[in-house]
């Protein structure tokens, strides 16, 4: 059988300057186990794994393999020791073929250094057959779907005889179906004797697949947990205090529809229709969540509303006024609040103070400006109230916004956008990379804005968040609107829709395979009454990966 390997991290500490990313972390990965590292974004999981993989040198501590200490000077050493890693952002060269990517760094060569890709192709087919991966060695990476690219990454590790496979947030980029397939692959790998270190903050997946769970918080191990532990228990370990996983959301009271998008098409510089003939409306006092896998036109849709794209066809009407063709400034003045998906890139100017960031869209208006002069006192005063109102954790409003943590930065962006009367509120990825405590707060603010009678559009690639917030859910796929379904639609139905299956088909598909189907769309009594949770209560059927809709999609 395969040689198995016991991996031990002992007292690993990693400092970046004064920042302690890992603080005396001890983890033991037993052979043939799926060991989960659970922790919030920024808890230090990835740093730890980069230490293990030889990308960082630990400040203190040692790595033991089969009880013998080892030092890794680079990923090469780690690979030689039988450690493989699948990074959150794939490490694949897009213009290379699968075979070239797999060969890279561990090339078999004929005399004279000539590549022997046939040998690599053979190995890929072998592994591909063993695990049912269905990967063509000669396909170009850039032509492959994300799920298949991930398998290429796994093959890359297996070709190098990895005995321990590190998967860093592997489900972040996947549809729910892909995710379930991946969990299946992980179990298969385990049965073939490969240990897996699974890094995640998604409790549902962690509980579904792990043998052992180590919880990391602020760079420290706070304990181990059993996969049978309840989600509440795991969540409070992860966050460090009891968290309320349910959002108390009153049922929506939609009023008249004031925001309407008709036949909207956005053409990218490449000539591609990134948003393709989309029509929908949002009523006042309603949250429409746009779901979909990253890169299916959501970003462009929100940017088109704001006026950031030049090649836009169709119409966007807010309160009877056409927004297409207006400048960004005009759109903002029409009462659109916009939280961009990348706060550090588009939401804030990191080197500006928090106070300045809070008035970026109103720097030229009273009371902050008069003619050509600005009033710094008013700006600071405004900052004080906003900081208090939004509970931004900072000693002073005059600090640079870039010094804040992710959650607090997001609060600043949100505070700016919500601090003026709005006629439409758009938030893209409102809680990406934000700690659970802040998520709670931000979600409450979004719901409060809805209850003010503002139409709200949320774009999120996190299905949990969509289910949590939405009054209605629109699913985008390749720039097209797959359908709009009511809140309370099952996770598996949404998953299928995110893969391009129409709403009706998805419903029948899911209903046919599950004895107890998800609530039927419009008839659902009061979707908002079902308490949404963090992570949302998964339909029990999804927890059995080999049955049901997902299992049937294996080749």
């Amino acid at each position, binding site marked *: 059988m395969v040689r198995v390997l016991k991996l031990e991290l002992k007292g690993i500490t990693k400092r970046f300057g004064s920042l302690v990313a890992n603080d005396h972390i001890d983890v033991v990965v037993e052979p043939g186990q799926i060991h989960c590292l659970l922790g919030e974004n920024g808890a230090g999981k990835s740093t730890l794994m980069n230490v293990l993989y030889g990308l960082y040198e630990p400040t203190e501590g040692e790595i033991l393999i089969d009880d013998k200490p080892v030092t890794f000077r680079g990923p090469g050493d780690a690979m030689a020791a039988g450690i493989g890693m699948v990074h959150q952002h794939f490490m694949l*060269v897009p*213009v290379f073929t699968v075979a070239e990517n797999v060969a890279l760094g561990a090339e078999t060569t004929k005399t004279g250094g*000539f590549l022997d890709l046939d040998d690599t192709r053979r190995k890929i087919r072998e592994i591909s057959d063993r695990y049912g991966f*269905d990967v063509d060695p000669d396909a170009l990476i850039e032509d492959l779907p994300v799920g298949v690219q991930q398998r290429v990454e796994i093959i890359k590790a297996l070709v190098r005889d990895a005995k321990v496979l590190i998967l860093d947030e592997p489900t972040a980029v996947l549809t729910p*179906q892909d995710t379930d397939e991946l969990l299946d692959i992980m179990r298969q790998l385990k049965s073939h004797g490969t240990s897996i270190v699974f890094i995640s903050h998604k409790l549902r997946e962690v509980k579904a697949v792990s043998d052992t769970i180590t919880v990391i918080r602020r760079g420290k191990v706070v304990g181990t947990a059993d996969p049978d532990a309840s989600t509440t228990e795991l969540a409070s370990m992860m966050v460090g205090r009891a968290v309320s996983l349910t959002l108390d959301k009153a049922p929506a009271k939609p009023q008249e529809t004031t925001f309407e998008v008709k036949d909207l098409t956005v053409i990218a510089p490449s*000539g*591609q229709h990134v948003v393709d003939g989309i029509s929908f409306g949002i009523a006042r006092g309603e949250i429409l969540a746009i779901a979909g896998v990253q*890169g299916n036109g959501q970003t462009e849709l929100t940017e088109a509303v704001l006026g950031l794209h030049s090649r836009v066809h169709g119409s966007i009407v807010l309160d009877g006024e056409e927004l297409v063709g207006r400048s960004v400034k005009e759109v903002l003045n029409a009462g659109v609040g916009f939280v961009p998906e990348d706060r550090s890139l588009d939401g804030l100017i990191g080197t500006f103070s928090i106070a300045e960031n809070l008035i970026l869209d109103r720097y030229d208006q009273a009371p902050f400006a008069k003619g050509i002069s600005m009033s710094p006192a008013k700006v600071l005063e405004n900052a004080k109230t906003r900081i208090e109102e939004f509970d931004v954790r900072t000693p002073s409003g005059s600090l640079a916004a870039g010094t804040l943590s992710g959650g607090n930065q997001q609060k600043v962006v949100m505070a700016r956008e919500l601090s003026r009367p709005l006629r439409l509120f758009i938030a893209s990825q409102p809680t990406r990379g934000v700690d659970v405590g802040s998520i709670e707060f931000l979600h409450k603010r979004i719901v409060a804005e809805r209850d003010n009678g503002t139409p709200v559009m949320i774009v999120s690639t996190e299905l949990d968040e969509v289910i949590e917030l939405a009054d209605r859910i629109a699913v985008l796929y390749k*720039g097209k609107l797959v359908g709009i379904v009511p809140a309370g639609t099952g996770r598996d139905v949404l998953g299928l829709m995110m893969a391009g299956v129409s709403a009706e088909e998805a419903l029948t598909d899911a209903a046919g395979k599950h004895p107890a189907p998800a609530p039927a769309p419009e008839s659902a009594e009061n979707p908002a009454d079902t308490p949404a949770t963090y992570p949302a209560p998964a339909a029990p059927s999804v927890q059995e990966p080999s049955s049901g809709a997902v299992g049937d999609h294996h080749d």
Partner: protein
Amino acid sequence: MSTTATSPVKPQPEESHTPAQSAKPVTWKLPVTLAVLAVVAFIFFGLLGPQGTAKFGVSSGGDFFQLPAIEVPAFLSGMVLSVILLGLAGYALVLKANRNQRPPRWLPVVFTVVFVVAFLIWVVGGARTPSISLAGLIAGSVTLAVPIVFGSLSGVLCERAGVVNIAIEGQLLGGAFTAALVASLTHNPYAGLLAAAVAGALVSMVLALFSIKYVVNQIIVGVVLNVLVSGLTGFLFSTVMQSDPEKYNSPGRLPIIDIPVLSSIPVIGPILFKQSVVGYLMYVAVIVIWIALFKTKWGLRVRAVGEHPQAADTLGIKVNATRFWNVTLGGAVAGIGGSFFTLVAIDSFTKEISGGRGFIALAAMILGRWNPIGAFFAALLFGFADNLQSIVTIIGTPVPSQFMAMLPYLVTVFAVAGLVGRSRPPAADGIPYVKG
């Protein structure tokens, strides 16, 4: 999608998560450009074409069999060829309009060839002495292309590894100067050749050091290096070389090695088998670098470093070391190209002898899509335009010589502007790699 290796029928969700990114749009750019050129050709080469005949000599005196010269009626062939051009352009337009397809790959190539032939007939037919030697034209093109080919190979080596090399001009110039100086001092042009490679490599090492180790903007370092080398060689030329040209600036030429029999084949004989060492080295370099880049382990790693350095790093490849040595090697190659100016073309150094060919080489590299063979042919195109310009001026054309002198640069601008299709540089080209 190509993942369907084993299962013919695939459930929909499987292949469905590609973000909407794959299909490249078909644009009007190419068909419209072709149409405009075809109309220009029809008006000038056809309707306004000269009435005489154009004579193209094929063989030169020493060939071991003689081919008769080609004589064509200028007006008639101008008409015929420009009508062909109109047809090709029309076909491309129809394809786009009716079926939204891009023209087949051969079409722009055939179009270019026909256009160039029509242009030649037009120019020669209207000249005072309507006769040129085709063999001479081609041989001259290759000669003029030699430094450009070496320069563009240097660019390919650097940029494939992810370092933008604007300093090709400086590397050529450094090579030219050092070759002249060392060959003069040692009385051995081969020593000059070797020294040129070292000089080019040294210029490159400065580029590598600053852009890789100190992460200075690569374009700025490159530009600064060009100015530095130009100033330095200019200074040394006027202070050292001109003080005693006999001693410091008379390198002597590399001999032309004539391979018997083969060199007497008409047209291709002289360009392939009657070259200096530098000329032969050029062919060798193109082929060797192509094979090395695309068929060997080394090449795979170099390309990975240029495309996705982080991926390469996670596989244990030393990104910055690879870049450093590639840039150095590129400099050596460009240095050899520089020696052509002082050891083959002329036998002395003058200020700015490279005359901007380093920049043309950069254009050739882009036009050749970062591929050694592509760059070779692109460089030939520039050499051809350069040579045509001088020949046509000699035989006396109706076109003012200043306009003809613009030809190589016009070709450069149009070629790089993407007439031949948008080319795609290595993804990490010009982006320094700093470990997290």
